[in-house]
């Protein structure tokens, strides 16, 4: 029965989840905010608010898992749901005083976690306290009040009538009474309820006990429990004790010691309930369908929701109030059987993948790894079993960060599991420990001259995304942008920085500091100097390199674009300044950047090239207007094809081809044999890129069959000394009148049959290093480049790559 083993890891009684659903308040008609933009739907505000709940970890709180929006402001909250509600237990059993004290203690522990985050439960009842098999409790549904902006975004009151503190009734439900102590009152009421007793004289508790004819029970209560309840039920919120104060009470000491020994480190979790929920979804789990099946979501024919009368300015009259808009406290548990079945054959070893030092014996005893190679990325991301293995592995690797940096990179080259993308990215970007502190120190609030621009840009930045369009999303994005501008005083805010930040915020929505740290490490690596106040030279250099890269790989296209005067400047600025984050929707950016983060600052040029390649046929048959229209309204780009193509050209292009003066030398170290000192004027005149002596030397030594060296110096010099394997086509011997390769004489066939070899042209100060490469380019010869500097570069290289040219 070995097969049962692994499933039992999944079949933990606490690893279960359920969902509740409600409607957010609908805005009336077509209302606009003060900026003329439509009001953010309440359900989206709720989605934004709810994200914080995902970060809450406590053994006494159910883990918050997900929030889903449906039509018409329908909102679904998915959360851990396990154990039995106290309400059910106290119907059948009488709990001992010790058990009750323990429940009180654990509930207070749970509440104190919430209160520290300024979250008020407001909904504490015996239905929402779940007792686990081991007798511990977990609080459930504690996020409703917080996510609905203290109940303001829903049309029902968030409270349990019986347990609600008096001041809530005094101040009215809508006043947004903030005091956390309402929870304490509820707790007191709840304990009282468990004891099922009630009455008194001086104390509220006694009074309630008397009213319920339970004075006897009241009198027989142990003093500590009585005190606790009375403290909780103080009608003055100011006198009512806080969680912390109550937890300090001596009578809780017996529970304290077992659970609060400071741990040296958090125990390693093999997987979490969030991950289980993720796999469950991939395996076909659908919360919406389950709610439908169980009758919590009922759809009525749309015609029934038509109003009787619509006034011209949009007011609706005679619309029946849908009873479903009231709060329905039912909880639907999600069935996990399908997932268990789907994973039943996964061996236990798969939960503990070995990372280091695999011995042959151990690895041969391992089952073969789940093979998904060759499958398209989108399929791999939807395959529950593949994602199971990837998540388990990456989670382990991330746990070892920064020591596992290389392993993370190695695995990321295969693919990155979407669930852990945020953490993997920050590992790839070398986000250091202590990033929170750095972020905390930065000024994100003082008014600056950039504020207006940031404020008008944020409401237009990837607003189709729920997180980024939520109120929380707007606030966070603004803070990150302001912090970045504050920290990088040498740079300024350029429109587009918002789009660039969006993917990081989306992935680290609950960790603003990490999103900021990612952005801060990303820009120097890929967009060095792009955000200078005057970035003209940086951008122009980049665009010139882009044109050259097109010539290098696709001379036919380059010639056509040149003929119709179609300059990359007209379309590629948003591409490079935002690294395509202003061009593509988020899900495409994520896949694109998954690869970008593994490559250097030249990769975006290759992405640009691959986009042109995808549109190649249309571009070749179009004139200027059609071409520019194509880019103003970019057609659907197949991002996976784009990624593959850009990886190919990236790997097959000598690095110096894309070398730039304004590159960040921290990431691209240059020496004497690399390209330096090319002015923008020179660069713009050159249609073909330069290649460094270093790259030629490397290729000649390691892959001599990958390069065709054409030495255009005169024959005498060539015979005296030349690079091994190079051919001599003296510049003076060529007639450039016609763009026909045959003009090159005997060597023309060498060029025609070169395949994908790089054609490097070597000259010296006597030769014209522009006409010859241009001639080749016009003849549609691909991969033409020119040695940076001249032949003499090679003379001092040891061991030499030179020979005397007589063999040729």
């Amino acid at each position, binding site marked *: 029965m070995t097969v049962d083993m692994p499933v039992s890891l999944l079949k933990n009684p606490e690893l279960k989840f359920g969902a509740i659903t409600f409607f957010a308040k609908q805005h009336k008609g077509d209302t606009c905010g003060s900026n003329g933009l439509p009001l953010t739907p309440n359900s989206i505000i709720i989605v934004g608010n709810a994200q914080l709940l995902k970060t809450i970890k406590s053994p006494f709180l159910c883990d918050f898992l997900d929030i889903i929006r449906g039509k018409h402001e329908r909102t679904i909250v998915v959360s851990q749901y396990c154990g039995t509600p106290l309400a059910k237990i106290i119907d059948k059993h009488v709990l001992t005083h010790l058990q009750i004290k323990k429940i009180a203690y654990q509930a207070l522990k749970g509440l104190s976690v919430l209160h520290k985050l300024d979250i008020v439960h407001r909904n504490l009842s015996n239905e929402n306290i779940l007792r686990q098999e081991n007798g511990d409790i977990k609080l459930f549904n504690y996020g409703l009040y917080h996510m609905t902006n203290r109940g303001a975004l829903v049309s029902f009151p968030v409270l349990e009538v019986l347990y609600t503190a008096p001041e809530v009734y005094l101040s009215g439900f809508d006043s947004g009474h903030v005091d956390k102590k309402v929870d304490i009152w509820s707790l007191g009421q709840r304990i009282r309820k468990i004891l099922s007793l009630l009455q008194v004289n001086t104390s509220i508790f006694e009074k309630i006990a008397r009213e319920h004819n339970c004075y006897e029970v009241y009198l027989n209560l142990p003093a500590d429990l009585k005190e606790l309840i009375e403290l909780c039920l103080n009608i003055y919120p100011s006198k009512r004790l806080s969680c912390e104060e109550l937890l300090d009470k001596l009578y809780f000491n017996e529970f304290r010691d077992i659970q609060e020994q400071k741990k040296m480190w958090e125990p390693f979790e093999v997987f979490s309930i969030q991950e289980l929920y993720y796999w469950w979804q991939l395996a076909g789990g659908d919360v919406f369908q389950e709610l439908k099946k169980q009758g919590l979501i009922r759809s009525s024919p749309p015609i029934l929701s038509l109003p009787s009368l619509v006034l011209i300015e949009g007011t609706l009259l005679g619309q029946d109030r849908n009873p479903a808009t009231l709060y329905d406290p039912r909880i639907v548990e999600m069935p996990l059987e399908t997932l268990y079945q789907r994973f039943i054959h996964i061996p236990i070893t798969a939960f503990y993948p070995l990372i280091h030092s695999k011995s042959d014996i151990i690895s041969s005893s391992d089952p073969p790894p789940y093979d998904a190679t060759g499958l398209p990325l989108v399929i791999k991301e939807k395959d529950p079993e593949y994602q199971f293995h990837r998540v388990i592995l990456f989670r382990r690797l991330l746990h070892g960060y920064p020591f596992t940096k290389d392993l993370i990179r190695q695995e990321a080259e295969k693919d990155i599991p979407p669930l852990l993308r945020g953490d993997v990215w920050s590992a790839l970007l070398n986000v250091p420990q202590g990033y929170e502190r750095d972020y905390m120190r930065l000024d994100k609030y003082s008014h600056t001259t950039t504020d207006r621009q940031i404020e008008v840009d944020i409401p237009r930045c990837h607003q189709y995304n729920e997180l980024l369009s939520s109120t929380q999303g707007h606030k966070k994005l603004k803070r990150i942008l302001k912090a970045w501008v504050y920290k990088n005083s040498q740079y300024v805010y350029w429109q587009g920085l918002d789009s660039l930040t969006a993917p990081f915020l989306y992935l680290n929505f609950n960790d603003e500091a990490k999103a900021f740290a990612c952005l801060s490490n990303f820009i120097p690596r890929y967009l060095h100097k792009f955000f200078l106040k005057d970035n003209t030279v940086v951008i*122009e250099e980049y665009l010139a390199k882009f044109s050259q890269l097109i010539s290098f790989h696709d001379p036919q296209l380059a010639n056509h674009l040149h003929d119709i005067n179609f300059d990359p400047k007209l379309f590629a600025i948003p591409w490079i300044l935002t690294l395509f984050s202003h061009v593509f929707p988020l899900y495409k950016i994520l896949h694109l950047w998954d690869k970008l983060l593994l490559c250097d600052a030249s990769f975006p040029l290759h992405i640009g090239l691959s986009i042109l390649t995808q549109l190649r046929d249309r571009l070749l048959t179009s004139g200027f207007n059609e071409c520019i229209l194509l880019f*103003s309204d970019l057609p659907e780009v197949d991002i996976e094809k784009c990624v593959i193509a850009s990886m190919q050209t990236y790997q097959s292009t000598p690095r110096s081809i894309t070398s730039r003066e304004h590159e960040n030398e921290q990431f691209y170290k240059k020496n004497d044999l690399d390209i330096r000192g090319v002015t923008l004027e020179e660069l713009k005149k050159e249609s073909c890129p330069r290649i460094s002596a270093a790259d030629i030397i490397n290729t000649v030594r390691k892959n001599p069959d990958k390069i065709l060296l054409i030495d255009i110096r005169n024959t005498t010099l060539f015979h005296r000394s030349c690079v091994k394997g190079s051919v001599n086509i003296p510049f003076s011997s060529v007639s450039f009148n016609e763009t026909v390769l045959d003009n090159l004489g005997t060597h023309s066939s060498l060029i025609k049959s070169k395949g994908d070899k790089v054609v490097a042209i070597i000259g010296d100060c006597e030769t014209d290093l522009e006409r010859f490469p241009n001639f080749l380019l016009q003849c549609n010869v691909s991969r033409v480049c020119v040695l940076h500097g001249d032949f003499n570069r090679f003379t001092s290289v040891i061991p030499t790559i030179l020979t005397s040219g007589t063999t040729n």
Partner: protein
Amino acid sequence: MANRTGTAQRPNGQTQGKICQFKLVLLGESAVGKSSLVLRFVKGQFHEYQESTIGAAFLTQTICLDDTTVKFEIWDTAGQERYHSLAPMYYRGAQAAIVVYDITNQDTFGRAKTWVKELQRQASPTIVIALAGNKQDLANKRMVEYEEAQTYADENGLLFMETSAKTAMNVNDIFLAIAKKLPKNEQNTGQAGNAQGRRLTEGDTGPRAAGNCCK
């Protein structure tokens, strides 16, 4: 209604009339609605969350004016001041410009005046300039009075309309008014096919010139 330009686009294959092409550029502070105006004019659409424009976007639209077919080649530019250095590349050689401001924001009107001045100084002397006070649908939050803008437009010989890309008010009208005012002589006709691309960028004296402007 003026916004039915779909019919104008395909004038039933009747080509006996003249065809004129004009390069038009939109300028103005960011988030005043330049892209929205173009989108409304070209596609009849309106997006509440129209993305910001980086660099510039290019679109074309054709309208019929009596027996003449007018084709607008529209350059929609980025509004942020920092992108200013790119602007000359787009307005140089343009026969028409729409300078846009937001009627709910006085600063954007000031910025519009600066653009007008720059065009009068740097662009073609025959350029037809229109001033568009956009977001007329938010007239209850108006900060720029109609009369103020009208006076300014009159003083400077500009076409002027308050527009709303959201409700489509005056959007086609302002383009139509420009088309009427543009000279439809031989120079602008019959440039079809490949020639148009060249002509379009001839006005651009190259990136170097554009770069200098920001200094």
